[in-house]
């Protein structure tokens, strides 16, 4: 079976009309597999960083959510050492009406609003809860070191 219409259209739109601060391009040999970059949002400790991610649309998409992972190291309470992301819309809050674009915008928004109460990286979350300024400093350092 060829690629579903939905994926073709979403891809076209992502390339033609990219969301600000976000790029997404499919691999030539696997059109369900995307190389993604997200710019760290202004005002966040990730500002000026360019973060690499990978995104994959499983067979069941859009009935099942896309799989997304950071490839750039990042110091964030909801992102673990392997780049896995804890975000409700990537799990139980997924709706088939959401799209690649909305998912990536949500990931970008997560960088502005870390949620230490629902942690995936417990040590980072603890740091964020106990000493937010210190934790943000580490996030900034990591951004400079790994994401620029």
């Amino acid at each position, binding site marked *: 079976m060829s690629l579903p219409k939905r994926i073709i259209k979403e891809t076209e739109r992502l390339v033609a009309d990219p969301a600000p601060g976000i790029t997404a391009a499919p691999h030539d040999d*696997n059109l*369900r597999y995307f190389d993604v970059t997200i710019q760290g949002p202004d005002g966040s400790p990730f500002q000026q960083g360019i973060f690499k991610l*990978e995104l*994959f649309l499983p067979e069941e998409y859009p009935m099942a959510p896309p799989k997304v992972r950071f490839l750039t190291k990042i110091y964030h309470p909801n992102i673990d*050492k*392997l*780049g896995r992301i804890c975000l409700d819309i990537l799990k139980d809050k997924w709706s088939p009406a959401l799209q690649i674009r909305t998912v990536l915008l949500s990931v970008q928004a997560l960088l502005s609003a870390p949620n230490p109460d629902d942690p995936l990286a417990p040590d980072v979350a603890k740091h964020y809860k106990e000493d937010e300024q210190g934790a943000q400093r580490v996030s900034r350092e990591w951004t400079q070191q790994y994401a620029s």
Partner: protein
Amino acid sequence: MAAKVPRNFRLLEELEKGEKGIGDGSCSYGLEDGDDIMMSNWNGTIIGPGHTVHENRIYSLKITCSESYPDAPPLVQFLSRVNLPFVSANGTVDPARLHVLASWTRASSLEHVLVEIRKEMASAANRKLPQPPEGSLFSD
């Protein structure tokens, strides 16, 4: 054509399965380094099957997944010393002599490799092979 799961997401799936624990716990595996974002280097453990010379022994293995995994099979190497026909003098598993590696497909997995090695240990041909001292390593 069905969606082809890329290497990294495939390895994440395998990692999550391994973290939950597979089967009866006689085989297990995990990342050598939890920070390894490319997930290339893995540790495997096999508990020797009962009623064989391997009973109660714990074998450590090193598994390496290349860029082209799972299109290409992983590299498998015993760290614990063992005497098996498909294991070379330095501990490397000869892919031509272990069925799961020789006939590797995308449907095969790290779990399959470990489970098959353990099955081989218990096979009639191998269960009584004389073994090096327990706990010794190929690097010794």
